[in-house]
């Protein structure tokens, strides 16, 4: 293979590429998705227990409730509104603090406390909200608890916020669109317009042509991958290992892009393959969003093996020692896919020869 010819193919694509809306699409997608998914859906994915309060007097419970960590408190202006919100599952529970509630509690009059529970609220949220509410009322009475509670943190498990668990999805989009879809679409477009035949009557071989397209995918996927990690503040402390993991991701995606681009004879077929194969490449991201799902299912997909190192290094601050095995398996996948690319290259060569 003559690398300078492959370089020419890639350089040509990089030079002419920005004229295509697909390049713009691939580069802007990480930015747009980061905004949409983290900005809009991020908070929706992490539903804290939601408590509504109607304060008919001027109870100190409201301020105390607002200071509760991890509970979303909403002050509602009427009992009717509270009932409506709880019933519609816009709140998990709600309580009504009547006029002079604090005084009645302090005087030991045991005033009524209406506590509405949403039928659709989770049992765990119900218990969290009801015991927390009772504790707030105990606070008003001012009685010292007959017990001291000491909270101890053990182990090294970390709390990963939902917005962070979405990072693999964003990375996957960035590398799949730029690394696989752009070269595949470029090849299909050149087939449809007959450009591929013109290219292959020059001294450039099919291997050099494919290497050029793979280079295009790798460069673009690396760029969009870094942009995505930067936007999500997920570059971690081990930049070199992270870049290496991204390179592995970009290479695997470029290989897949070459296979798809060779198989698809037109745009419709390309799209049909992307929509079916896409789910097989993308499904591991679901297991980061919901970590309680059985993780072995994610490991079946080759993309898991590059997503995991990127997530561990970029988000959890892991080092090369923690992720070498996953990276090695990802490289093994790349090597395993390579013969398929070779077969496709030969098939493309035959097709072009027949067309000529």
């Amino acid at each position: 293979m003559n690398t300078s010819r492959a370089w020419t193919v890639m350089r040509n694509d990089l030079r002419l590429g920005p004229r295509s809306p697909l390049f713009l699409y691939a580069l802007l997608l990480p930015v747009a998705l980061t905004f949409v998914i983290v900005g809009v859906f991020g908070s929706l994915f992490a539903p804290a227990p939601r408590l509504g309060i109607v304060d008919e007097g001027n109870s100190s419970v409201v301020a105390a409730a607002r200071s509760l960590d991890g509970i979303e408190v909403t002050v509602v202006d009427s009992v009717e509104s509270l009932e409506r919100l709880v019933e519609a599952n816009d709140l998990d529970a709600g309580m009504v603090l009547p006029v002079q509630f604090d005084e009645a509690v302090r005087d030991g009059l045991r005033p009524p406390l209406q506590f509405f529970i949403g039928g659709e609220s989770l049992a765990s949220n119900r218990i969290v909200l009801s015991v927390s509410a009772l504790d707030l009322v105990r606070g008003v009475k001012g009685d010292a608890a007959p017990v001291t509670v000491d909270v101890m943190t053990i182990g090294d498990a970390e709390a990963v916020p939902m917005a962070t668990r979405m990072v693999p999805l964003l990375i996957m989009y960035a590398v799949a669109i730029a690394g696989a879809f752009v070269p595949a679409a470029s090849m299909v477009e050149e087939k449809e317009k007959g450009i591929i035949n013109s290219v292959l009557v020059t001294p450039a071989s099919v291997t050099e042509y494919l290497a050029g397209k793979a280079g295009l995918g790798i460069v673009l996927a690396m760029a969009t991958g870094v942009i995505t990690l930067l936007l999500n503040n997920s570059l971690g402390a081990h930049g070199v290992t992270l870049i290496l993991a991204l390179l592995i991701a970009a290479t695997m995606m470029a290989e897949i892009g070459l296979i798809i681009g060779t198989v698809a004879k037109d745009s419709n077929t390309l799209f049909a393959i992307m929509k079916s194969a896409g789910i097989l490449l993308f499904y591991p991201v679901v297991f980061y969003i919901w970590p309680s799902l059985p993780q072995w299912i994610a490991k079946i997909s080759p993309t898991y093996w590059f997503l995991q190192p990127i997530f561990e290094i970029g988000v959890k601050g892991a080092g090369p020692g923690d992720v070498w095995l996953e990276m090695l398996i990802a490289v093994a996948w790349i090597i395993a896919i390579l013969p398929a690319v070779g077969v496709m290259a030969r098939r493309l060569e035959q097709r072009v020869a027949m067309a000529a």
Partner: protein
Amino acid sequence: MSGPNPSIVATIVRKDLKAFARDRFYFWISVAGLVVYVVVFWVLPDTVNESITVGATGAGIETMLEKAAGEGSEGLNLVAFDSRENLETAVANGKGDVALGLAFPDDFFESVMAGRPVIVSIVATAAVPPELRTAMTSFVREAAFAISGDPLPVSLQEQILGVDRVGDQVSLREKMRPLLAFLVLLLEMMSLAGIIASEIQSRTVVAVITTPARIFDFLTAKIVFGTLLAFSQVVLLLVAIRSLSGEPLLVLTTMLLGSLMVTAFALIAGSFGRDFITVLFWSMLFMIPMMIPAFGLLFPGSASVWIKAIPTYGLVEILTGTTSYGDGWAEAVPNLALLGGWTVIAYVAGLGILRKKVRSL
């Protein structure tokens, strides 16, 4: 102006269907896509774990735990451990789904009743959310108040509003049902838009309307073909994910309207698209906002007003209502009307734009 000529429309549809079936690869890859969606659906969990498993240790603590369970601590699954070491190990390793541990001293009951100072440790990993730590702190305090004979400072009046779904929550699998059905519809919208764009670019449409076929026949044929393609695939999916058992006629009517609506949007995307990439761009422009109602189902709470204004809201609501909540025609009528209204609007826009485009060729 007279209506479309049925025999001409049928001929064009037949031609499109033949072209679709002849392309074996495209045909089988569409089947494979459907199979993948069905597999994804059945792999997703069909139950919701809504209880918190809490480990506890301390002499005689089992009695207190039994009492707590007997008082209807729904959502709290208490597990006794024989030593603090075992409890800490279980919490650290997440063994038996133990979210956190309560380490009571062996003289807990005696100390509380005697009013002596007593310390209870809550053992948790950093992954335990703050509200759970707060709640368990309150739980321990309340247990101590109860043991010491201090009653609640209020007269608690609990009331459950709406259908109590504890133990019968809508699972992730159920919530994904409309999203998957919807993805099939939207992806078919992109396919049809691609076909229309290519017929415009290759001027096949011009060739067709130089025959006895008129633009109206051509447009009607595209609508029939697109609707048929989207509807047949979505029905296959719904059968495979068992979504036609409750109100089959209502679900099929909704899906037919949905198929008609996405076909109308395909007319718009196909008119603007010059090639695959521009079709993709225009289709995504419609797809992303239209997917929001289906995504919204994954989260608790009612939809905001702006989400209700999205054309696909009615479709998603009906599908969720019938498959997850047992709704019937009576509950679905307002959403059917909404869906129908949006479909009409989409057709007025789609047909207008495509007709203008064809006439400009």
